[in-house]
């Protein structure tokens, strides 16, 4: 089966920043099946819809998956209340994930806010070949910096208020880097800027998108995103793809921002 519903025991819980929680769960064989950049649709008791949460990290040997989620509304508030020893009901692994390729290339990872977590596992694979540019609102909202540094990545930080790292946008670091490949996840304006940079420099770039979602598997067509589609006459037309099935990771040249 490509994906399945599984009850996963929570092994660890940690508050990384105010309202941002990390969960490590015992996922059994799911941890071997999952790819970086995929996500789980997590059941929220009492709610009609599951919540799509990206896989932050995975350990195939220990059979664990790690998720980092931010309280954004009622659903994530309920999920944030889960404790070690309880089970999370995961529908996973979903979506396509990052196409990591050769990890000896110079990779640039660009993450903004709660878009940072899905970059951790792929950045670990690149280790010291990875430059990781992370943007946060403030020092208080910064997460996972130690994790990227422990993996040997070169970590660059920018904050909106200047309380940590560069005072400004994460994209302002781009003059310093000459990557072979780019992976990005975060707010749409950031992804647009990253895609434009990649386009100018001719660097392949994969962006992970987010959208309000229902089924998570491509049946309900709820999580639409505008993309280019090749036409029969060799041109391009605009259409709606779906974050859950066609993504969440897209070639940046295919996304219409």
């Amino acid at each position, binding site marked *: 089966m490509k994906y399945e*519903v599984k009850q996963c025991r929570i092994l660890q819980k940690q508050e990384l920043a105010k309202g941002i929680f990390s969960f490590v769960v015992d996922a059994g064989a799911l941890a071997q099946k999952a790819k970086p950049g995929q996500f789980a649709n997590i*059941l929220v008791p009492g709610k*009609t819809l599951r919540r799509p949460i990206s896989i932050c990290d995975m350990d195939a040997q220990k059979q664990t998956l790690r998720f980092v989620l931010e309280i954004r509304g009622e659903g994530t508030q309920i999920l944030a209340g889960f404790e070690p020893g309880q089970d999370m009901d995961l529908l996973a692994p979903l979506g396509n994930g990052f196409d990591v390729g050769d990890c000896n290339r110079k990779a640039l990872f660009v993450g903004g806010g709660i878009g940072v977590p899905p970059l951790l596992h792929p950045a670990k694979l690149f280790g010291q070949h990875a430059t990781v540019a992370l943007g946060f609102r403030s020092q208080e909202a910064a997460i996972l910096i130690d994790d990227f540094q422990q993996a040997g990545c070169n970590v660059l930080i920018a904050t909106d208020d200047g309380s940590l790292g560069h005072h400004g946008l994460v994209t302002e670091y781009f003059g310093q880097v000459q990557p072979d490949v780019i992976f990005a996840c975060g707010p749409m304006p950031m992804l647009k800027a990253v895609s434009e940079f990649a386009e100018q420099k001719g660097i392949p770039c994969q962006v992970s998108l987010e959208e309000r979602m*229902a*089924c998570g*598997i491509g049946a*309900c*067509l709820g*999580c*639409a995103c505008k993309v280019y589609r090749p036409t029969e006459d060799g041109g391009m037309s605009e259409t709606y793809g779906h974050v859950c099935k066609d993504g969440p990771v897209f070639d940046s040249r295919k996304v219409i921002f």
Partner: protein
Amino acid sequence: MADLRVTIAGVEFDNPLIAASGTFGFGREYMEFYPLSTLGGISCKGITLKERAGNPPPRIAETPSGMLNAVGLQNPGVDHFIQEDLPWLKTQGTKVIANIAGNTPEEYCEMAEKLSGTDVDMIELNISCPNVKQGGVQFGTTCAGVSDITAQVRKHCTKPLMVKLSPNVADIAEIAAAAEASGADAISMINTLTGMRIDIHTRRPIIRNNTGGLSGPAILPVAVRMVWQAANRVKIPIVGMGGVSRWEDAVELMLAGASAIQIGTAFFSNPYAPIEILDGVAKYLEQNQFASVTELTGKVQAW
């Protein structure tokens, strides 16, 4: 074990659970969980004469005990369905219902004609999609509109014809009667209730279409009431839907007058919902000594 088979408009379903249109695609995604023959039938994603891109996102918003959607009939068009999806679906051991929506009566008729030439089991006339300006709901909210479109399609449709009713009407029994009088073989009801949610921080509707269709457990009591009212009025079978997520809900809707049940939104939180519902219904039938699920239909003893 009680007999779970039901016959609707001459089509025999192995059990009374049918996937509701728009929640189940063309079935491929849910095959990961169980064989599609688990379901009595599948009502496919609503199809139109030509491909439709659908509405801009966001298309989804959660609501208390439910959700809004405004997908806007994104689909590859009837020809693609007939060529690519239908032949495969017909090998899956379940009954296949084509749900069709159109801008004009002519489009409905053309699709009905094309589908009548295939081995699709039934046609569901969608005159109740609330999310596109020309998606059929203009035909579905008045008796005259329902009569006219049903009668016109009937002339071009040699398959069993089921008309899917909108709940956004003043008198559902009148509408059901209009469909019956104009040639419908069955009725399915209810489609979603038009709703709206606003993000109080941005002061924008959450859904880009502003309004969307409300589904999920929140609408179950509306569905029960409307199925009951329609069942008291018409003789043709009613396929009930609206917020069914547990076996008790399915039994309730059948007691109200439904001959079969469609489930939809329940798939999103629990892909295995049909298995659990069938299991529960079967046990209920045994415990209450019903030999057949058909005995439940309309068994409510109203005060």
